[in-house]
């Protein structure tokens, strides 16, 4: 590794040396010069050796404000990170980039939307930026995973959009643990990025800070589902500060998980119903190479479609469904069994949800 990069990494781990001060220093001089200037605050030789060992162990690369490969879109940012640790390839940032963000407690419909949107966009060569949190973030990257999988060639040769993830903790501190596989997938097929030095715990205050980098890396941010307050809304604010387009997926006005997105729509954000909306907003015309929409699910009978219509796009219990459809338990159970086996509805701990808007 480049000695200057190593010194920049060691500098970022100095306590009480914030990213703003470090950014100001590295903006005008090299890391080695910055270390000389710091005097007694400067990282010791042992610190630097330790950092080198950590970076090598986690196969992490480093870039900093003065470096040649520092991402262009962050260079002029209002709160640019001084040093970035990454795994993967910075060239991925040359692709068109769309952020997909949302709540951690997503509904089944939200998860479905996140993964399908990410899949479709990735197929069109758009890179998906997300935060690798639980819920929507994870499902967006699962969509990319599937798109790359279907392609069957290595990520660098594929024409699919690649995954980009901005995380809050150090790259060696996988959080949440259940996303460890996705974490590895993103690092191997795209770009996994953080401003936190290795060993940094996923402390709560780091997530809003992470969101500013996430927003800055996107050309456009799509919010799938969000409560009226929460991490996704912080990403939205950061995006709006930077004049980055924010789009939102409409949801039931009765669902709290869609309160944030519906609020955004009310304020004038453009709605997203499928990938085409996003493609048009990016200025990409995909009408000619429109992907063949293939839904393997068999179209339900008219009677079953009526049942889906009674669900009104929200989560319902069997009880509510019986009352709305005024059918008896046995017939409804049969219909739900049919719909579930075809993948039209899913039972989530007692609540039935519709997947995909296809037959409504």
């Amino acid at each position, binding site marked *: 590794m480049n000695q200057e990069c190593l010194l920049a990494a060691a500098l970022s781990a100095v306590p009480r040396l914030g990213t703003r001060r470090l950014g100001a220093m590295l903006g005008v001089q090299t890391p080695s010069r910055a270390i000389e200037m710091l005097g007694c605050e400067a990282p010791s030789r042992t610190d630097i050796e330790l950092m080198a060992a950590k970076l090598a162990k986690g196969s992490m690369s480093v870039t900093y404000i003065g470096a040649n490969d520092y991402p262009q879109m962050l260079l002029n940012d209002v709160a640019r990170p001084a040093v970035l640790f990454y795994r993967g390839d910075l060239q991925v940032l040359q692709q068109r980039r769309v952020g997909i963000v949302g709540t*951690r*407690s997503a*509904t*089944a*419909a939200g*998860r*479905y939307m996140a*993964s*399908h949107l990410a*899949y479709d966009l990735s197929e069109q060569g758009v890179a998906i930026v997300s935060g690798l949190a*639980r*819920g929507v973030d994870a499902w967006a990257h*699962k*969509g990319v995973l*599937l798109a790359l999988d279907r392609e069957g060639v290595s990520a660098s040769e594929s024409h699919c959009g690649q995954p980009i993830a901005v995380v809050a903790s150090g790259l060696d501190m996988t959080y*949440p643990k*259940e996303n460890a596989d996705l974490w590895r997938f993103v690092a191997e097929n795209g770009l996994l990025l953080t401003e936190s030095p290795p060993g940094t715990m996923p402390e709560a205050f780091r997530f809003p800070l992470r969101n500013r980098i996430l927003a800055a890396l996107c050309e456009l941010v799509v919010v799938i589902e969000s*409560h009226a307050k929460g991490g996704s809304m912080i990403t939205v604010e950061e995006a709006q500060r930077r004049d980055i387009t924010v789009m939102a997926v409409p*949801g*039931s006005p*009765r*669902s*709290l*998980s*869609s309160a944030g997105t519906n609020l955004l729509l009310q304020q004038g954000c453009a709605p997203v119903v499928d990938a085409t909306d996003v493609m048009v907003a990016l200025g990409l015309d995909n009408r000619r190479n429109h992907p063949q929409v293939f839904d*393997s*699910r068999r179209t339900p009978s008219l009677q079953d479609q009526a049942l889906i219509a009674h669900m009104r796009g*929200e*989560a319902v*219990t*069997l*009880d*509510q469904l*019986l*009352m709305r459809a005024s059918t008896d*338990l*046995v*017939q*409804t*159970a*049969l219909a*739900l*069994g049919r719909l579930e*086996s075809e*993948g039209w509805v*899913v*039972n*989530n*701990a*007692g*609540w039935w*949800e519709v*997947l*995909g808007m296809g037959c409504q």
Partner: protein
Amino acid sequence: MAFASVRSSTLLGVQGKEVDVEIHVGMGLPGFTIVGQPDEACRESRDRVRAALLSCDLPWPNRRITVNLATSVHERKGGAGLDVAIAIGLLIVQDVLPNEVGERFAFISELGLDGTLRPVAGVVPLVAAIDDRVVVVAQECEREARIAARNEVVCAQTLAHVVKCLMGEAQWTPAQPRGVIGAAPPTADMKDVRGQAVARQALEIAAAGAHHLLLVGPPGAGKSMLAQRMSSILPPLSNEEAVATTIIHSAAQSPLPPSGIITLPPLRAPHHSTSLVAMVGGGSTTMRPGEISLATNGVLFLDELGEFAPTVLDALRQPLEDGVVRLARAKSSVTMPAKFLLVAATNPCPCGEGMPGVCVCDDSAKKRYLRRFSGPLLDRFDLRVAVSRPHVDELLADTPAESSQVIAMRVLRVRQLAMLRSGCLNSALSADLLDEFAPLTTDAAALLRYHLERGRLSGRGYHRIRRVARTIADLLSTSDHSTDQIDESHIATALALRVGVHPQLNGDKL
């Protein structure tokens, strides 16, 4: 005469054991010792017996008194029910009473210091244990005592009264007229439950087939209200069941109805802070029956299932399978009945809402919450039903819903049908009996196969679904001897009433 032997009995678990109280009075320094592993209450009877004899102007031997509690097995004897037997033995030794009193009578009662006879815990099993002797009990527990008595039961008020009766100078207190049997019907009725069509059906199915039921829903949805009405739709107890249930309740000193015998299925709803011993039973000497035994032939309702200690919940697993609980301690081991219908209620997640889109818990918080009840326990619930808050229109409707009485008729019909067909309730059908009494149509088998292949059903779950489907088919059928096949609709209904409690993350086909 220096020796006498008088019959009484002590309690272990829910069973009485005959005890021969042997009394020896001999030369030596005046003293009174009780041997034969008495417990503290037993040992205290020295002072009670002496005070009672003196209060009744009966003689007290100022010599060395030794009392031995002899049983066929060596175990600790508990309780104060031996007081009168000891007192009578002392009187026989002093020739106040003839020797044959010990051969004709047995005594089960505690003594007050003034010589009154006091009722003791577990009179029903204690009296049931006495063979070929007339049993003397306190007047207050005479009704209870007659429930399972094998011989004549007489009662008296004081020790002096007992002595007079034994000498033929007075009459035993006459038996009181029996209270009305089959006392007041339960006050909680299903007609008070508005809406909740699915939960009502689930309750009916659970009652008809004796299937364990889990209600999942937000606070205020009516889970507890529904569960408390479970016992009102169960058929009344048969005679044997009534006696068995009364014995357990008597042994646990749980209050009995005015008629003295429990004829309606009991409903036990222990609080979630209940300890392990209180739940399954135990204790050092008497082995008091726990809540699961008290719920025998009735309903055990566990509200806020997730708040119970995990050890308490896991202790339910073996009794749920076997219908009895076997407790072993260093000095004794007992088997107590524990054949109950388990009804439990829980919130779906920490915030209580559960409904996707409204719930604010993330998946890991839900998982943590649901980890409190172990998978094996969850798997034992045949019916797992989501309960939602009733619609306003339903709450305000003035037409009362179906009453418990009507539902209980259907439940009774299905239970009789099942007993005639297979000799057991549907939930007790074993795997081989299922093939015989609940054959599947091709469609039904295909549906089950689909769910098994996707890993939604365990092997145990597969059989449970088939049993529930049998009950559903019975409830829907109109004929009186149904051995018809289980079709797809029955299986689909059973599956719809057994939802996965864990949030499903791989719901879509991606």
